[in-house]
């Protein structure tokens, strides 16, 4: 078996592998900048919370529409947006902090989701919802992922500056521009959209992995905001590529394989990345005069 067969053969041979790869690429395109901003806004866990929040909506869509992507995606997006808006409302109106109100709502919706699936579906359905199956990504799913990536990039282009300023200096944005809350809400909606796009392929639990892990890893390689976004997109895509190959050759489930590859990239970055990784910190200590 040649190297070509190992690396490109599966994609050349099978349509489902090609679709999966294109899906990963589109997911990484939108997920890179969104994940980067989540990391910079210290909202990494909120991405996780939102990914769980998508579950009951997707389950409702499944109950009423069966294994139909439009029904499940609409339901998932609706549930995710509802949790984002409701917890935003609670944060604004009560002394509860954003992370706590998010946690509260996502726990409720996770329980609701599991309850719905377990009373109306089989265990296999639940597994499918939670962990997805990228190898069954069909044309409809590809179009959905592509549309979401497009919307994400266009919207980010429009709200990039206030979004960035809101993480850097929220007080300044409040003083010069009253629309910080609107920007925040739009951004949360983008997070939900990207999670919904990812859940068919990776499942609700894994979707956030392809968003957060590359973004967290990129922090150890580059500094500038735009390069950070590009680097996390590239890392996300590379993880998708390698993860798919692993899952093909070793006969592993694709979603966890992809996320694990991203996880390995993250661990390597923490250890040996050129910026503030453990390696550079040790070097600095050794060189500093003591």
């Amino acid at each position: 078996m040649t190297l070509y067969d190992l690396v490109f053969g599966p994609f050349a041979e099978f349509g489902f592998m090609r679709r999966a790869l294109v899906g990963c690429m589109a997911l990484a395109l939108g997920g890179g900048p969104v994940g980067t901003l989540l990391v910079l806004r210290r909202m990494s866990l909120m991405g996780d919370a939102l990914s769980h929040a998508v579950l009951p909506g997707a389950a409702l869509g499944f109950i009423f529409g069966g294994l139909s992507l439009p029904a499940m995606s609409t339901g998932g997006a609706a549930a995710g947006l509802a949790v984002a808006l409701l917890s935003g409302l609670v944060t604004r109106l009560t002394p509860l902090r954003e992370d706590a109100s998010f946690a509260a709502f996502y726990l409720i919706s996770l329980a609701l989701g599991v309850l719905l699936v377990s009373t109306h579906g089989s265990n296999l359905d639940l597994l499918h919802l939670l962990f997805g199956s990228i190898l069954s990504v069909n044309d409809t799913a590809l179009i959905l992922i592509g549309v979401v990536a497009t919307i994400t990039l266009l919207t980010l282009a429009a709200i990039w500056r206030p979004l960035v300023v809101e993480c850097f200096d929220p007080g300044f944005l409040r003083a010069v521009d009253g629309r910080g809350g609107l920007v925040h809400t739009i951004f949360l909606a983008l997070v939900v959209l990207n999670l919904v796009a990812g859940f068919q392929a990776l499942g609700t639990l894994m979707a956030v992995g392809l968003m957060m892990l590359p973004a967290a890893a990129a922090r150890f390689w580059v500094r500038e905001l735009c390069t950070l976004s590009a680097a996390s997109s590239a890392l996300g895509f590379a993880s998708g590529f390698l993860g798919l190959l692993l899952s093909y050759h070793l006969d592993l489930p694709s979603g966890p394989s992809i996320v694990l590859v991203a996880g390995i990239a993250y661990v390597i970055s923490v250890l040996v990345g050129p910026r503030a990784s453990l390696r550079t910190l040790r070097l600095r200590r050794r060189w500093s005069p003591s």
Partner: protein
Amino acid sequence: MNGSPDRAVVLDNVTLAYDGNPAVRNLSGAFIRGSLTAIVGPNGSGKSTLMKGMAGLLRPAAGLIRSAGQVGGTIAYLPQHAEIERGFPISVLQTVLLGHWRRIGWTGGATRKLRERAQQALAAVGLEGFERRPVETLSAGQFQRVLFARLIAQDAGLILLDEPLAAVDWRTSEDLLRLIASWQQEGRTVAAVLHDLDQVRAYFPETLLLACEPVAWGPTRDVLMPRNLRRARRVAETWSGNAGHHWTDPESWATPALQRDHRVIENKSGPLWQDGVGSDRSVR
């Protein structure tokens, strides 16, 4: 009382409150256009709240705040302990360019002219050549200078500063004080919350002494009389419910000589007010 042309901000029996608890009560008066006013008072006396109210970030519970017809029609506000993410990947020049927000908004590009203005602002705060430096590599004093450069870029008619010198070294605070004074000469109206009464005496012609309610407002020399300072302390204690021993002796922070002694020990501003902070916290 209306927004006559010589008044930058008019306060008409203003009460500002948080969750129904008034922090500033029944404040009336005006900041004259082109005036340079220090706002002083014991901790918890509503100075920051007043700043927020004037910046338009807090609606008065009663009364009216009118800031009419500024030069350029804008307000620049530098909050206390700005909730700034200092590790954020943004350069010094980009930070200063944000001062042009009114002109560039969400999507406008920074023209060459705006860039030049930002660079001039950096030069004015003594940070020439720092344009490309990431803000995370700056010291606290340098970072405060960057924020002042951004204030310059904002080119506002009314500038509100909430403890702008709280965390900076002596040299920086002298430089920034001179800058603040130069803003007045450019015809801008400046109001700043300060702790160090020596700095107030040296640089600020006008002073508003606040202790939840206004104690005195006028020429600095008249306002910072021991009699007024003692009264401010008494009023503040009444409002905050602090027992007297939590404050340093009023004479000490009313006496310039003793203040200077403190500053020899600690180059930071207003150790006497700071004492107040400490005891405030220990009470709660």
